[in-house]
């Protein structure tokens, strides 16, 4: 894990994940989270911001990566795609928390190569509270499928919904959680 993940490795994981390979996807998110953590900490330290805010951003970026997976074009570099999302989320975070964005370097050649595996910090995001913002039906589906790990068909049985309705609810629920996170103006 200490070896810097190369573009080709990450890209291969992403391609496997996009066919529904959950373990490839988990590995990908783990690697990306440590790279994102180093990236955000590095930027925030210049602005006297702490590790909790960096962790908030790591999670927001992971959420954004997840809900916008479909915008990755396999013919393009994967790290450039991730970096563009990370930088967008950083600028957005600084703007909504009223910080000048003038100091954010726009270095195009910058890559997500540094890593930070220290995942002990908790973000200020409270999953239970976020789940409360969903409709009860969607919340239940997310609980079954994404938190309890029931299969889609089991969840469909328990909720009395069709499998495709469950999938749509999960998709909508995650999108609305991502939106909720990006709306929060944490000072």
């Amino acid at each position, binding site marked *: 894990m200490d070896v810097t993940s190369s573009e080709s490795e990450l890209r291969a994981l992403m391609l496997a994940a996009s066919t529904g390979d*959950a373990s490839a*996807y988990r590995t990908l998110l783990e690697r990306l989270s440590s790279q994102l953590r180093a990236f955000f900490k590095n930027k925030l330290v210049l602005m006297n911001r702490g590790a909790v805010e960096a962790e908030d951003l790591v999670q927001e970026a992971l959420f954004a990566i997840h809900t*916008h997976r479909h915008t990755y074009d396999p013919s393009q570099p994967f790290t*450039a*795609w991730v970096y563009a*999302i990370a930088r*967008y989320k950083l600028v957005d975070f600084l703007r909504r928390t009223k910080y000048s964005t003038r100091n954010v370097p726009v270095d195009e050649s910058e890559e997500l190569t540094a890593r930070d595996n220290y*995942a002990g910090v908790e973000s200020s995001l409270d999953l239970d509270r976020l789940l409360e913002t969903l409709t009860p039906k969607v919340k239940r589906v997310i609980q079954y*499928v*994404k938190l309890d790990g029931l299969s889609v068909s089991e969840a469909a049985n328990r909720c009395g919904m069709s499998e495709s309705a469950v999938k749509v609810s999960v998709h909508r629920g995650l999108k609305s959680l991502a939106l909720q996170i990006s709306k929060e103006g944490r000072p």
Partner: protein
Amino acid sequence: MKTDQLIDMLSTNVDPVKTVAIRKTLSLALLIGGSAAFCLMLGTVGLRRELSWSWNFLALKLLFTVSLIGLGTALLAKLARPGQKNAKLSALTLLPFIVIVLAGSIALASHTPMAWGKMLLGMNWFTCLFCIPLFAVLPFVALIWFLRKGAPTELKLTGAIAGLVAGALGATAYAFHCPDDSIPFIAVWYGAMVALCASIGSMLGPRLLRW
């Protein structure tokens, strides 16, 4: 929440990605927006009266607007996705403006200053001023709908290009009504109105496209 918890959640029961046909959605937005602008033109100011059609000038107007639509659309397809480089293409969208302004200046230079007023203002500059931005509204809505399906990361630029393409679609529709046949007129009024739409787009972009 710990990040490991989030990773657990996101990677549990992960669905295969449905690849969205970005180009297809974009073409649909252009088609809907463009036809809406054309219908609005037909329903308000109407087609130019048949006898006075000047095919050369219509072709010239369309050359200007369609080249902007082409360049802008190619750029939007890239801007809708994070991390695609596009500096060259962004610079290229200025080319049609430069060409039409140069052509307009040459046309003015070949006439006496006495004729300039008529060439620049034509008969209908006020209608043009009003119609192009009006016809651009629906195409702009359609393009924003398209962009919100993607993940644009440069919101000002993306908004500006959406405004540019919408303005050019509005100008395309207006060209079928426009009774003014002079290159300086196209350079000043078409150019300025499309540029105005682009600058409005750049202001609206950060609000409408945030995700």
